[in-house]
């Protein structure tokens, strides 16, 4: 069983997954933020690899990515920062999230090897097509014991959801509605509810986390009533914006969601 599956098995419900952009708000904030998030009660942590043109992201994550790149973040720096992370954060699942082009330029094999060496558990690349994953990446991911995480939207067909469910042993990332990260949900609660319930009724192998537009205690609790947990990204980044002490801000944020 991998760390992601262990986390779900241990807690079962109400899992909190926090996303932040590596190298934001300062280049060296990455490791202290991971340590603080884990200690404060985040059940999974997504480490964003900043990209110049993040198509699936809204303005908040875009701006944090631009800032992180300006701070000097890149793949080599990130892996150097993460090299001893498992000494201080042994159990919390760590996922790398980003876009395909920087990974391609770094070299997929090289990327996966270094991620595995650092103790990373899962990879989220929203612009990696399923077929390309199966044909070109799956073997490499498996060799390094890395789990892919795929997104599902209200428009994703049932057949495609089943296929995605077969391709991983981690969790399914349920995008809450149409939109990029951090967007306000324009759908009615009823429409959203029907979507979450439809997926829940499919009896899938993997647990589900709901993401996009989740940002506080109330929206987290609501998401948790339809899935095993939820993912918070933009709202967390906003909490770090302009913070004097990023770890303190992180701790306060997690606490405000959980308590």
């Amino acid at each position, binding site marked *: 069983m991998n760390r992601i599956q262990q986390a779900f098995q241990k807690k079962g419900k109400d899992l909190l997954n926090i996303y932040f952009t590596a190298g934001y708000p300062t280049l060296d904030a990455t490791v202290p933020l991971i340590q603080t998030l884990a200690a404060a009660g985040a059940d999974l942590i997504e480490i964003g690899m900043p990209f110049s043109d993040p198509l*699936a992201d809204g303005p908040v994550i875009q701006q944090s990515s631009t800032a992180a790149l300006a701070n000097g973040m890149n793949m080599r720096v990130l892996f150097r920062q993460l090299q001893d992370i498992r000494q201080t954060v042994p159990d919390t699942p760590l996922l790398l999230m980003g876009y395909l082009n*920087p990974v*391609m*330029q770094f070299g997929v094999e090289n990327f996966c090897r270094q991620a595995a060496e650092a103790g990373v558990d899962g990879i989220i690349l929203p612009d990696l097509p399923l*077929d390309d994953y199966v044909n070109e990446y799956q073997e490499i991911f498996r060799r390094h014991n890395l789990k892919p995480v795929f997104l599902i939207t209200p428009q994703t067909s049932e057949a495609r959801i089943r296929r995605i469910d077969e391709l991983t042993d981690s969790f399914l990332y349920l995008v809450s509605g*149409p939109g*990029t990260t951090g967007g306000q949900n324009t759908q009615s609660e009823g429409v959203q509810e029907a979507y979450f319930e439809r997926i829940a009724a499919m009896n899938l192998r993997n647990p589900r986390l709901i993401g996009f537009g989740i940002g506080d205690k109330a929206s987290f609790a609501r998401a948790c009533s339809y899935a095993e947990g939820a993912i918070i990204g933009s709202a967390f980044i906003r909490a770090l914006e302009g913070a004097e002490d990023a770890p303190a801000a992180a701790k306060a944020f997690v606490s405000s969601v959980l308590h």
Partner: protein
Amino acid sequence: MATTSAFQPNARGYYGEFGGAFIPEMLYPNVEELREQYLTILADPDFQRDYQQLLRDFVGRPTPLFEAKRLSARYGTRIFLKREDLCHTGAHKVNNTVGQILLAQRLGKTRIIAETGAGQHGVATATVCALMGMECIVYMGKTDTERQRPNVERMRLLGAEVRPVTSGSQTLKDATNEAIRDWISNPVDTHYIIGSVVGPHPYPDLVARLQAIISEEIRKQLLEKVGRELPDYVVACVGGGSNAAGAFYHFLDEPSVKLIAVEAAGKGIKSGHSAATSVLGKPGIIHGSRTLLMQDEDGQITEPYSLSAGLDYPGIGPLHAFLGASGRARFISIEDEPALRAVAELSRLEGIIPALETAHALAALDQIGAGPEDIVVLNLSGRGDKDLDTYLKYAEQMH
């Protein structure tokens, strides 16, 4: 008509190693719907009737193939200009938007989004939306809204909403990102009319097919004028590559026809201010397509530069990446200055003021190696009205 099999994308949208559809799941249903339907809709006699009729009565096609005698004398070869500048709205872009608005109607879409650089594609999109009574939103980099002011006003007059984009370099790349984000947020009622042969499959093929009318006409017109369908050279500028794709399309499988693609070198290939993707680019992913793109060693997309807003794009369409890699097309890059000189030259020699994008193709004429017996067709992709401010500033500097 020639078959173009060697240069058609495969079922997954690849031209050789270039193309594909690298899109987040949120876009998958939209792109998949388009992929499943575009060939059927394009082949439908009802679609073809409407498309041909609009091309004739609204766009003003066929556009003339004009023998430019004084320009020919200047370069010692026989030059024909394919007058896309005479299309309604002043550039080739409208061939694509007329086709895509008909496609959008058949897909049941009611809201249209587009990106624009020079504003020509934005104007062409706003125009067909007005014609069909559809809502139209155009994303345009803030830098471009400033340097192509008249086109912003034209779009507004046509009833479109122009949304200035302030992220990144505030040019075409960022406008395209923003249009894609809009599409992600509006997956059901919206069609994205992309302006060039870029983006995820099937867009490069869709746009190439809608622009192919250019080379279809060239073949007929050349036959009438010189007794043969095939020129020796076809020259076109490349931003994303749509006017070049249209001008090349029906010559792709005619190896005797030399295809010349002209990119913008900006202030010079080595200056750090350039948009010459074929020289400076490496394979990577931009806007959902695996193609050549300008990027740093970490795979971050770099900001291109060209005085010309329509060529200021860090990638090229996957077809062009393949044409370059396979040696089928030759790429030439032209700096700002020679392009500006070519504007003045064509204006004075032939009484035609070209768009700044097109001027890059004109400035390459003395490098293509054409002789007195050769027939050169140059795709005059657009007219220069939108660039008058830039031309005047340059003329002042010269004095």
